[in-house]
C-alpha cells in the first residue's frame, strides 16, 4: 500500500533558556493509504507535540526539530511555505481535541467552511460551494439548515461533528484526530466514533488517531504506537497489543480499565505519576513506576527493537533478538 505519512527519527526539543525539554524523542512510524493508526499515551507523553510537529505548526525558534516528515512523498522540511500551505487540508487535516475552542466563536459554521474552501481556491461558483457545504454537513449527520448557526449555539457533540466536517471538506488523504471524543457523553461519543469509522470506510482516508483511551484505540485502530515520556515504547497491531501487551506500561494501561464483563478483579493501576519531561529519571523513563524493574533499567535507556515481524518494544525485559536470544535476562530483578 502507498505510504501517506512517513515520520522518521523525529525529535522535538523545546529550549527554555538553559533548560532543554525533550518532548518527542526519536519517533518513527508510517501511515499507509486507508490505514488507521493510533498513538496512545497519557498527558505529558509528547503526543500533542508530535501532532503539532507533523502539522508543521511548531515554530523553529522555540523548538529544535530533527528527523524527517514525509507527507505524500514529499519531505516537509524542504517544501516551500506556499506549497506547504496548499498541501495542508488537501493532504493532511486535523480534527482538534476540543471542538469547543477549535471553532471560531464569531463566525457561522458556513463562513468557517467557506474560508477553508476559499483558502484553497477550489470552488468556482457559489452554488457549487453551497452544495459542497451541504453535502459535507449531511455526511456527518448535521442538517444543512444548521449551517447558519454559530458554534456557541451547538451542543458538544454537534460541534465535534462540525469539526469533523471541516476536516473532510477537501477530501484529505490523512486525517489526524486528537482525542476526537474526549469530554463528550458516552452515547454521543459512541455515535461519533461510528461516524468516523463509517466515513473512513466510505471515503478511504487514512487516520492518525491520538488518545489516552486504550480500549477505544484498540477497538478502532489497526496499529498502535504507545508513547511514554516522549518515546514510542511499544508498537504493533492493536489486536496483538491488547492480547499480549509486552511493555510493563502497556500492560498497566490495559489493566487500568475496569472491565464491563467478567469477574471484578482488583485493579492495580500504575503507581506513581507520569514524569516531568524536563526532569526525566536516568535510564528508562518508566523505571520509577515499573514493577518489573531491572538494574540495567536505571542506567540505560532501552531502544525500540523488533521482537517479532509486526511488533517492537523498548524494554530491557525483552532483549533484542539480534544481540541475545536467550529470552531471559541476565540481570537480577530488583523489585
Amino acid at each position, binding site marked *: 500500500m502507498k505510504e501517506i505519512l512517513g515520520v522518521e527519527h523525529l525529535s522535538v526539543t*523545546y529550549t527554555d*533558556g538553559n533548560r532543554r525539554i525533550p518532548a518527542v524523542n526519536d519517533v518513527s512510524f508510517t501511515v499507509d493509504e486507508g490505514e488507521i493508526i493510533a498513538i496512545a499515551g497519557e*498527558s505529558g507523553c509528547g503526543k500533542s507535540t508530535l501532532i503539532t510537529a507533523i502539522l508543521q505548526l511548531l515554530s523553529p525558534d522555540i523548538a529544535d526539530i530533527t528527523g524527517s516528515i514525509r507527507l505524500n512523498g514529499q519531505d516537509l522540511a524542504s517544501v516551500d511555505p506556499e506549497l506547504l500551505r496548499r498541501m495542508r487540508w488537501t493532504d493532511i487535516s486535523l480534527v482538534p*481535541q476540543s471542538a469547543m475552542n477549535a471553532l471560531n466563536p464569531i463566525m457561522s459554521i458556513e463562513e468557517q467552511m467557506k474560508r477553508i474552501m476559499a483558502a484553497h481556491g477550489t470552488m468556482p461558483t457559489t452554488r457549487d460551494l453551497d452544495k459542497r457545504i451541504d453535502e459535507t454537513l449531511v455526511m456527518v449527520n448535521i442538517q444543512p439548515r444548521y449551517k447558519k448557526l454559530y458554534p456557541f449555539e451547538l451542543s458538544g457533540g454537534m460541534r465535534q461533528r462540525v469539526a469533523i466536517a471541516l476536516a473532510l471538506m477537501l477530501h484529505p488523504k490523512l486525517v489526524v484526530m486528537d482525542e476526537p471524543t474526549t469530554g463528550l457523553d458516552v452515547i454521543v461519543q459512541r455515535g461519533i466514533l461510528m461516524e468516523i469509522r463509517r466515513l473512513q470506510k466510505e471515503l478511504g482516508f487514512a487516520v492518525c488517531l491520538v488518545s*489516552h483511551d486504550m480500549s477505544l484505540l484498540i477497538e478502532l485502530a489497526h496499529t498502535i504506537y504507545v508513547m511514554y515520556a516522549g518515546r514510542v515504547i511499544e508498537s504493533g497491531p492493536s489486536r496483538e497489543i491488547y492480547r499480549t501487551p509486552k511493555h510493563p506500561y502497556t500492560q498497566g494501561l490495559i489493566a487500568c480499565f475496569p472491565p464491563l464483563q467478567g469477574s471484578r478483579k482488583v485493579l492495580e493501576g500504575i503507581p506513581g505519576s507520569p514524569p516531568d519531561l*524536563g526532569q526525566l529519571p536516568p535510564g528508562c523513563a518508566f523505571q520509577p513506576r515499573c514493577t518489573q524493574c531491572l538494574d540495567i533499567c536505571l542506567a540505560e535507556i532501552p531502544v525500540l527493537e523488533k521482537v517479532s515481524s509486526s511488533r517492537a518494544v523498548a524494554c530491557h525485559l525483552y532483549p533484542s533478538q539480534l544481540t541475545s536470544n536467550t529470552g531471559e535476562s541476565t540481570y537480577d530483578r530488583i523489585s
Partner: protein
Amino acid sequence: MTETTDIPGNDLELLRTMRSRNNQSWHAFIRNRTGMTGMLIFLLFVALAILAPWIAPGNPSAITMNILIPPNSHYLLGTTAEGQSVLMQTIWGTRSTLLVGLSAGALATLLSIIIGVGGAYSGGLVDDVATLFSNIFIVIPGIPLMIVLTTYLHHAGVGAMILVIAFTGWPFGARVLRSQTLSLRSRDFVRAARLSGEGTWGVVRRELFPNMLSLIIANLLGTIMYAIGAEVSLQFLGLGNINTVSWGTMLYWASNYQALLNGAWWWIIPPGVCIGLIGGALALVNRSIDEISNPQLAMSGRSKKRRLRRKLA
C-alpha cells in the same frame, strides 16, 4: 478548566509545572527587571517627597528678584516668573502630588473592593444595584464632574480634593474586582472551603483575598496613576489651592505667566517629566504584575520561554 475537557489531553502536566514556577509571585517580581525598575523610580519619588526639607531646605515659594532665569549652575532648573527655584518647587511639589495621589488612589481602591467584591459576594439584589452603580459611574466622565465639584468647593483643599478624586475613581476597579470575585466564587476550591465548614468571612479572608491580591495591587497602582493625573489637572486649572506648591500649580502659574511664550521651557518641562516618570514607573510595575500572572504578554528577551508555554498550552 473548561467543562468539556475530561482529561488534560495534551502536555498539560509539563505546562503546569513550568507555569507554576512563576507562582511564587514575590520572587518572580524581584527577578522581573521591568517591575523592579518601575518600583525603584517610584520609591525614588517617595523618598524625594519625604526628604524634601533636607534635600531642598528653605521655602519653595519664596519670591526673589531673579525672575525667569534659565538653568544655570546656581539654579539648576532655572527660576519662575516670581523668581522661585524651579528645582525646589519640583522637589516640594512631589509631596502634594504624591499625598493626593496615594491617598485618593487608596481610598478609591477601598471603595472598589467594598462595592465590587462586596456586591459580587453578596449576590442577588445587592450585586445588581452595585453593578448598576459602577456601570453608571463608569460612563459619567470623571474630570468634568470633578471640575464642577471643585468649583463649588472654591479652591478645594487637599482633603476635599482627595475625596472628589476617590469619588470618581472607584468604578473601574469595582468592575474588574467584581468579575474576579465572581469567577473565584464559583471555583471549586472556594466551594470546597465552604463545604468544609469555613464561614463567610473565613472564605473571603483565607480563600478569596489571597488570590485577589495581585489584582488589587494592580488596581491600586492604576488608581494612583489616575489620581495623580486628576490632581495635576485640577491644580493646573486652578481649582485647588493655587498657593500650595505642587506640580499642577507650577503648571498653572507657568501657564498664567505665559511661560512658553516667554520661552521659559524649564518651568514647564520638569513637572511634566516627573508626572511622566511616576506614571511610567507605575505602568512598569503593573505590567510586571501582569506578566507574572499572565505570562503570554511578556515582550522581549525571555519571550521564547513564554511562547513555549503557549505552544504547550
